[in-house]
């Protein structure tokens, strides 16, 4: 093969790879795509509502509810991928959600009001992390967030949550969230709203700017766009999602010891994000559901023999996926979906 032919092949591969991450250009959908999308959406809605019953033989709804929370946390990691950053503070921000929930419940605030307050209260913490993001990049930012998470866990969470979740007053569920199934439906509804918001942001001019910032921060700034503004926005959005996940985790678990937010676990969540396809909304949710729910179902199906093997399971699945499809679940999903819609390669 000549050098020119090799170069052309490389170029073709590069274009194909880039097309994978490109957002589709707006245009009229083909009838097959319309049918596929309508059918897919209907299937998703039916699946969401029937999943607790369908999987009841494999385990309790609790497993699904945990999966949705992990999906939110992984989405929070994935959102930071929009600006090419890696955060190890996701679990610390989830912990903040639990603490805020407990604090507000002790002061008699209704759960419906706590959720938006927790989201707003996440902003100051996110701004602290945002300052790191303005000064540091890549692995340095990751280390800074890990340090932040360690400090939060060792100082704040240890004293506030204790090692056995020893709140002065335990977290209580409101009457309309008495069962795990109700919590699950609330989580799914919230996750759907968050996913749509993320999707719309990615499709908007803000999304274009975030992609540009990730590709070349220097060119972005020289052109006259502010990297600081978009970085802070993304870190705050990611933090809000993680805090929301933490609030729901608190309401689901009711007792949350501080070791649930061990900083080292953030590495696992980051790995879930990579397996989902960093930056992807759908991939992050899928990865969260797989890694959050499946180990719990396996525990039930194995009659408790697989308790404590969740990270083993996660590592095995992650290894298979990233070896098979380096773009993660998102790339795999896109590939399958294109085939269903009949999009030519």
């Amino acid at each position, binding site marked *: 093969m000549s050098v020119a032919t090799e170069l052309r092949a490389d170029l073709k591969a*590069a274009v194909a*790879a880039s097309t994978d991450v*490109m957002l589709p*250009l707006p245009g009229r959908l083909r009838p097959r795509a319309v049918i596929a999308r309508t059918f897919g959406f209907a299937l998703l809605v039916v699946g969401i509502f029937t999943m607790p019953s369908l999987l009841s033989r494999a385990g309790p709804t609790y497993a699904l509810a945990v999966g949705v929370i992990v999906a939110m946390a992984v989405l929070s990691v994935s959102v930071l991928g929009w600006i090419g950053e890696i955060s190890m503070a996701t679990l610390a921000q989830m912990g903040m959600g639990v603490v805020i929930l407990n604090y507000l419940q002790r002061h008699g605030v209704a759960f419906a009001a706590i959720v938006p307050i927790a989201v707003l209260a996440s902003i100051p913490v996110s701004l602290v992390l945002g300052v790191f993001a303005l000064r540091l990049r890549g692995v340095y930012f990751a280390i800074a967030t890990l340090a932040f998470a360690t400090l939060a866990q060792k100082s704040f969470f240890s004293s506030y949550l204790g090692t056995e979740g020893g709140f002065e007053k335990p977290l209580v569920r409101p009457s309309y969230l008495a069962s795990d199934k109700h919590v699950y439906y609330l989580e799914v509804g919230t996750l759907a709203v968050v996913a749509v918001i993320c999707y719309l942001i990615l499709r908007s*001019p803000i999304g274009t700017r975030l992609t540009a910032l990730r*590709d070349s921060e*220097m*060119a972005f700034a*020289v*052109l006259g766009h502010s990297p600081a503004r978009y970085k802070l926005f993304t870190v705050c959005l990611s933090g809000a999602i993680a805090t929301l996940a933490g609030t729901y985790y608190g309401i689901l678990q009711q007792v949350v010891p501080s070791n649930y937010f061990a900083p080292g676990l953030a590495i696992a969540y980051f790995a879930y994000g990579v397996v989902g396809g960093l930056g992807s909304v759908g991939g992050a949710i899928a990865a969260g559901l797989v890694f959050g729910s499946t180990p719990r179902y396996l525990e039930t199906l194995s009659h408790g023999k697989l308790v404590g093997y969740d990270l083993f399971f996660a590592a095995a699945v992650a290894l298979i996926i990233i070896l098979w499809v380096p773009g993660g679940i998102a790339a795999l999903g896109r590939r399958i979906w294109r085939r269903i819609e009949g999009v030519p390669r």
Partner: protein
Amino acid sequence: MSPEVTNYRTARAAHTAELRPDPEKMARFAPLRARLGALLAEGTGPTRSTDRTEILAVSGLSIRFGGLQALDNVDLVARAGEVTGVIGPNGAGKTTFFNCVSGLYPPDRGQINFEGQPLKGSVVSRGRRGLGRTFQSPRLFSSLSVLDNLALGCAVAESAGRTYTFDSTLARLDRAERAERIARLVGFRGDLATPASGLAFGDLRVIEFARALCAAPRLLMLDEPASGLDVEQADDLVALLRRLADLGLAVLLIEHDMAVVMGVCDVITVLNFGTVLATGTPEQVQSDENVIEAYLGRSA
């Protein structure tokens, strides 16, 4: 003589050859310049701007990196309607100079004025004030399409309330039309929906240049824009730079291709080891004793 010295002399000699523009290449640009001149003279083309306002005035600019004095007391003026060349051997401080002006490096000393006002503040604020630049290695937003790359430039022009010095009619067009017109102006013939990562190297340069133009700059700083371009694209670039300058844009050009530099620049500043060796018209610079000595060495 040691091999290092021999190699150094050989490299110097090669540079000297670069300094003398190839007559064949120079001849190539002659019809382009004549065509543009004719258009301007006939009045059928855009009106030649007579504005020669000082857009950028740099005085005493110095910066040191550890033990290396990268720029030492550099003075330079770029005027509207002129192409100002910055030349010099590798390591002379040309790109460092661009980085200081665009705010990427804070200078140790010196004053930079832009449109009569001190140029201070962040890289972003300088971009919004009308300081456009390209890079030695093109830095496009590779995950975005060509159109999105250009539209991001147009968005800055809109939000900063800037007008296009080189074509006032552009302001009336919507973002996509404006981006397309500028892409065609710089000679891009491809599909604007193409992902930037799929462009050939020459097109990367051309689109980076177009993106800077989309932001409606007052001063355009180009870092080796002709490198990697084919002969036809380089010809078009020279004609375009001349045309943009004639329409009132200030252009600051770093370039190693001497045919391009001599063919398009009104004023040239020669840098060597971070200091200004000479400033003048192409003819003056070519005959300057200091420049010849620096490029040839005493023994030559």
